[in-house]
């Protein structure tokens, strides 16, 4: 007992660890020098040889770590976590026409997927119709083509929307697709309150990372607030905003920047809503998050834990939220697309499994595992099945989901959790000083931050400081795809989609479309007039994504892409 007490005494512990480093560890290193000059996490955080009670002495087990399902939610948003409900297996799917993607949904559901997720093609993402003369070559290529609510009906045909939650990866035109989802439900007799899912809709990260924007940032952010308010009123179980670190990270940011920039954006929308007189407690419970889980296993676990604690503290202390649901960060994770290699693609299965395990140990609510062939193309059925099975193996075989937050109390994980929280918090402070996330987008700060990190990463690879198996070490002479069969899109998709659009335009009531678009135009410039009911009416009238976006373009203008590099 005396011995244990002595260990808990900080000064004694410090002396003990110092002695160990100077004598025991130094002796080992004399014999076997460290294999690297310095050790850093993938995000560049310096890491020590070993972590001890010294490193967690400022972390309060109650205030900072707490218990699962309780403030500050470091250990998870729910008390029972996966012992109750497992995370949702949610693989993103989207290509070709709505029917093609609908078939892929059914394939995934038949193989154990438990939630849907949709990728849209570039014209849909950027508010152009399939008959736009410039962009026909992009129809259905990287996602499903959607022009009108007629496509949405086909997309969800035979899918019980009252039972399955759906994630829509859509941003610049998210308001229109959110309305489409509601209208599809309504026209099928499913009420808004039965619909669950998310629209991605975090437009600010588009300007800094994913680059699928239309309107200037300040206008587009107001449209996000419209959707959040609309969601709270007519689809109260749906998350209109899914604040995204994923694209920021894939574009090159570090884990700290991913958390800092994403949380800054989420705060921005809620604070814009506050300026309209909407209390954050009305909207925050339906804000969800989306993280990119990369290769550095323990850093990713720490990141997810840090992000939850940071969000809990900011919503409670800064936004003065009183509803505990506002403090909860619920998150979807996806394994890092940027980590997939075109070289030796079967190795991607191992990478994805490690990243998926980190997502689970970090406490995600929903997970997409990348397919081994996604460095090349839309995944094949075979490849996506392995990705789904990877999640099932983690859940059913590994035991990782059987204890809640099993890494809590690890000196290293807790120390890293605190470090990421602190550094992300500092970044949020810097962004606040320059006027918030919209300013950090407009002045190029966020773009430069991400570009600099991407550049540093590239240099570390080229200097050989970092190894990527199969890319800069353990290279095979054979540069082929290793015999994997790549998915090929049917080249007739574009023609068929344009034909369908022409049919919809022929059969709809033009006067109703024109009236809806005229009314939208008349209020588009008024900040305090929620545009969603008018967008919903336009969608019901079978107006197209392009027509609705054109109205908003005519009032708001378009944003010019950054040429920062």
């Amino acid at each position: 007992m005396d011995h244990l007490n002595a260990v808990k005494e900080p000064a004694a512990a410090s002396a003990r660890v110092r002695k160990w480093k100077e004598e025991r560890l130094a002796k080992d290193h004399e014999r076997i020098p460290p294999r690297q000059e310095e050790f850093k996490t993938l995000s560049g955080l310096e890491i020590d040889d070993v972590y001890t009670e010294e490193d967690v002495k400022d972390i309060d087990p109650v205030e900072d770590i707490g218990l699962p399902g309780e403030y500050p939610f470091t250990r998870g948003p729910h008390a029972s976590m996966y012992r109750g409900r497992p995370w949702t297996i949610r693989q993103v799917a989207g290509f070709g026409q709505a029917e093609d993607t609908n078939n892929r949904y059914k394939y995934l559901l038949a193989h154990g997927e438990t939630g849907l997720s949709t990728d849209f093609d570039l014209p849909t993402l950027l508010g152009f119709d399939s008959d736009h003369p410039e962009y026909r070559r992009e129809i259905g290529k990287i996602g499903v083509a959607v022009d009108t609510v007629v496509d949405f009906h086909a997309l969800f045909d035979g899918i019980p929307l009252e039972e399955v939650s759906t994630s829509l990866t859509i941003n610049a035109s998210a308001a229109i697709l959110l309305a489409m989802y509601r209208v599809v439900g309504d026209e099928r007799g499913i009420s808004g309150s039965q619909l669950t899912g998310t629209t991605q809709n975090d437009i600010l990260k588009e300007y800094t990372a994913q680059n699928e924007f239309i309107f200037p940032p300040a206008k587009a952010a107001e449209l996000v607030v419209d959707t959040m308010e609309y969601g709270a009123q007519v689809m109260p179980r749906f998350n209109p905003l899914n604040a995204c670190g994923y694209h920021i990270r894939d574009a090159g940011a570090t884990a700290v920047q991913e958390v800092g920039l994403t949380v800054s954006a989420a705060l921005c929308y809620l604070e814009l809503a506050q300026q309209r007189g909407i209390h954050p407690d009305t909207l925050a419970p339906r804000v969800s998050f989306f993280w990119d889980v990369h290769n550095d296993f323990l850093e990713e676990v720490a990141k997810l834990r840090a992000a939850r604690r940071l969000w809990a503290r900011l919503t409670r202390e800064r936004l003065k939220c009183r509803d505990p649901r506002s403090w909860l960060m619920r998150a979807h994770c996806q394994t890092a697309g940027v980590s997939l290699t075109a070289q030796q693609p079967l190795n991607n299965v191992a990478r994805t499994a490690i990243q998926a395990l980190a997502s689970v140990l970090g406490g995600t609510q929903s997970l997409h595992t990348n397919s081994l062939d996604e460095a090349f193309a839309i995944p094949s059925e075979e490849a996506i099945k392995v990705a789904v099975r990877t999640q099932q193996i983690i859940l059913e075989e590994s035991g990782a989901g059987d204890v809640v937050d099993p890494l809590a109390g690890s000196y290293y994980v807790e120390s890293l959790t605190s470090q990421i929280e602190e550094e992300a918090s500092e970044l949020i402070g810097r962004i606040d000083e320059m006027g918030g996330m919209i300013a950090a987008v407009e002045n190029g700060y966020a773009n430069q931050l991400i570009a600099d990190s991407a550049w540093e990463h590239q240099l570390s690879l080229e200097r050989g400081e970092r190894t990527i198996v199969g890319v800069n070490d353990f290279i095979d002479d054979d540069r082929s795809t290793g015999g994997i069969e790549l998915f090929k899109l049917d080249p007739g998709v574009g023609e068929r989609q344009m034909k369908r659009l022409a049919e919809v335009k022929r059969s709809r009531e033009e006067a109703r479309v024109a009236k809806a678009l005229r009314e939208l135009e008349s209020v588009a410039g008024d900040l305090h007039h929620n545009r969603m009911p008018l967008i919903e009416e336009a969608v019901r009238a079978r107006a197209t994504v392009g027509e609705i976006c054109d109205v908003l373009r005519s009032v708001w203008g378009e944003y010019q892409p950054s040429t920062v590099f």
Partner: protein
Amino acid sequence: MTGSSISSPQAPPIKVVVAKPGLDGHDRGAKVVARSLRDAGMEVVYTGIFQTPESILRAVIQEDAQVLGLSSLSGAHMEYAEDLCTLLRENDREDVLFLVGGTIPEEDAAQLKRVGVTEVFGPGTRTEDIINYIVDGVGERADA
């Protein structure tokens, strides 16, 4: 063997246009390559995203570029690169070293080279290899 000509004070810098065609927003690779070429002493213009083949050709002509680097990750690389080959030919700018980067399957890369693309660089390429390729290629074309 290379790299020396680039740092020689009398040689004017090599002019490069780095371009993103169509609606594809994945520009991490384009920006990293642009930066590496600038650091190697070249004069680099990055067009930003959302360019058309016509706007890219205009940039090449306006900048009097010797090199065009096209980056595409949306699966539409064949159409855009083929259009640009035609435009460069029609405008007597076949002298331009036309490089394509992105996740380009091998059979597509072979086809692109047949229609006039000078070289295709896939994922995992070292920026140093691109720099050396450009220095050699521009040198050869100047000597020709």
